């Protein structure tokens, strides 16, 4: 009995400690982002890695998400005889929810896992300690560029996703199922407001920060993970942890931001 309570307490203390560490990690990174010198080249490299290399995935997922929305939306709206609302249904669900969330999930899968594994292996092979020995701040050198790059890349990817989704909805709804083209686009222009677009941009920026925060933190604190598993197994474990935690966090935050903005 005592063992169970001790275990619970341990779990709780571990949770408390790691949330504290995450907070400190975030604060340190923010300070390092603001601290000169500002070197743009690492940021460009990271935008290439996080953003530009994800474009293909985003194009395909965006197109098919839009097509599914067009197909499903058409068959549901047809029951009420209001197929002309298809455009607004597709555009609103893409811009408000699916665009930011699916883009973030794709980026977690593509770049988040890679960031976590990269930093984890650097930690494991003591490259981060080597940086510290050379008086190079690993936050400034490794992590700050990733934060800035994610903050820039995610909105760009999200809006590319939205455009492709709208095109996908057009292909499924107008080309295949025969909704009037004018109704599709006019419904979209009428129903989407500037606040929806702003919500989309805010969400994608917050998601970008969250993804890099979680992935980089998990990699950076490889040596502190529970059970003290190090090496290849440790890296595989933290990468899995990072992907799962980031995905869940994105969905929770999606709800939180939505309820904050819409209330």
């Amino acid at each position: 009995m005592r063992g169970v309570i001790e275990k619970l307490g341990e779990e709780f203390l571990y949770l408390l400690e790691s949330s504290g560490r995450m907070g400190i990690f975030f604060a340190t990174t923010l300070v390092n982002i603001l601290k000169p010198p500002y070197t743009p080249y690492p940021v460009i490299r990271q935008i290439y890695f996080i953003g530009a290399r994800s474009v293909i995935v985003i194009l395909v997922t965006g197109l098919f998400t839009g097509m599914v929305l067009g197909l499903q939306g058409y068959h549901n709206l047809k029951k009420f005889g209001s197929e002309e609302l298809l455009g607004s249904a597709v555009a609103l669900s893409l811009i408000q929810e699916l665009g930011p969330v699916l883009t973030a999930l794709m980026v977690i899968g593509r770049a988040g896992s890679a960031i976590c594994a990269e930093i984890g292996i650097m930690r494991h092979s003591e490259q981060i300690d080597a940086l510290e020995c050379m008086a190079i701040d690993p936050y400034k050198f490794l992590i700050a560029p990733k934060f800035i790059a994610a903050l820039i890349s995610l909105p760009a990817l999200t809006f590319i996703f939205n455009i492709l989704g709208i095109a996908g909805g057009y292909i499924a709804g107008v080309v295949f199922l025969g909704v009037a083209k004018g109704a599709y686009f006019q419904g979209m222009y009428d129903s989407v407001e500037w606040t929806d677009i702003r919500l989309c941009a805010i969400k994608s920026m917050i998601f970008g920060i969250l993804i890099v925060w979680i992935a980089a933190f998990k990699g950076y604190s490889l040596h502190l993970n529970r059970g003290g598993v190090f090496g290849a197994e440790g890296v595989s474990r933290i990468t899995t942890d990072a992907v799962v935690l980031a995905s869940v966090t994105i969905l929770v935050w999606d709800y939180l931001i939505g309820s904050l903005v819409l209330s």
Partner: protein
Amino acid sequence: MKKMNLEMIVGLFLLTGFASFSFIAIKMGDIRLFTEESYPVSARFVSISGLREGAVVEVAGVKVGKVSGIELDGGKYEAVVRMDISKAVHLSDDSIASIRTAGIIGDRFIKLTPGGSEDYLGPGDEIHETESAISLEELVSKYIFEKK
């Protein structure tokens, strides 16, 4: 041709992202780079229930402007609706503004019916002839309860 280098790919990516954003923002977000020439007009209604900011203002079914603001006149308990009307449209000062419903989900819009006066409405003028929003429920209840 020079091989695509990292900067070019990143530049292309960012430009595509920005173009997508601008397309959505300008086409759907009603962000105007060049503000349309318009003049403000206001009207008072007893009830505007369902009318929202940004609603369409029509003359003969053609969009000529939009609702820019809705306020409550606390003294008279009347709704004051401000509209931006395109400069190209001249409205006589005895025009009638009425609130109508379009479509099955009931988007409210303002219908303007020009009158016969020779004088035109200028910027900041008020439309005096108004018809309030028609509520189907009120009509039905009137019909049921007054028919004794």
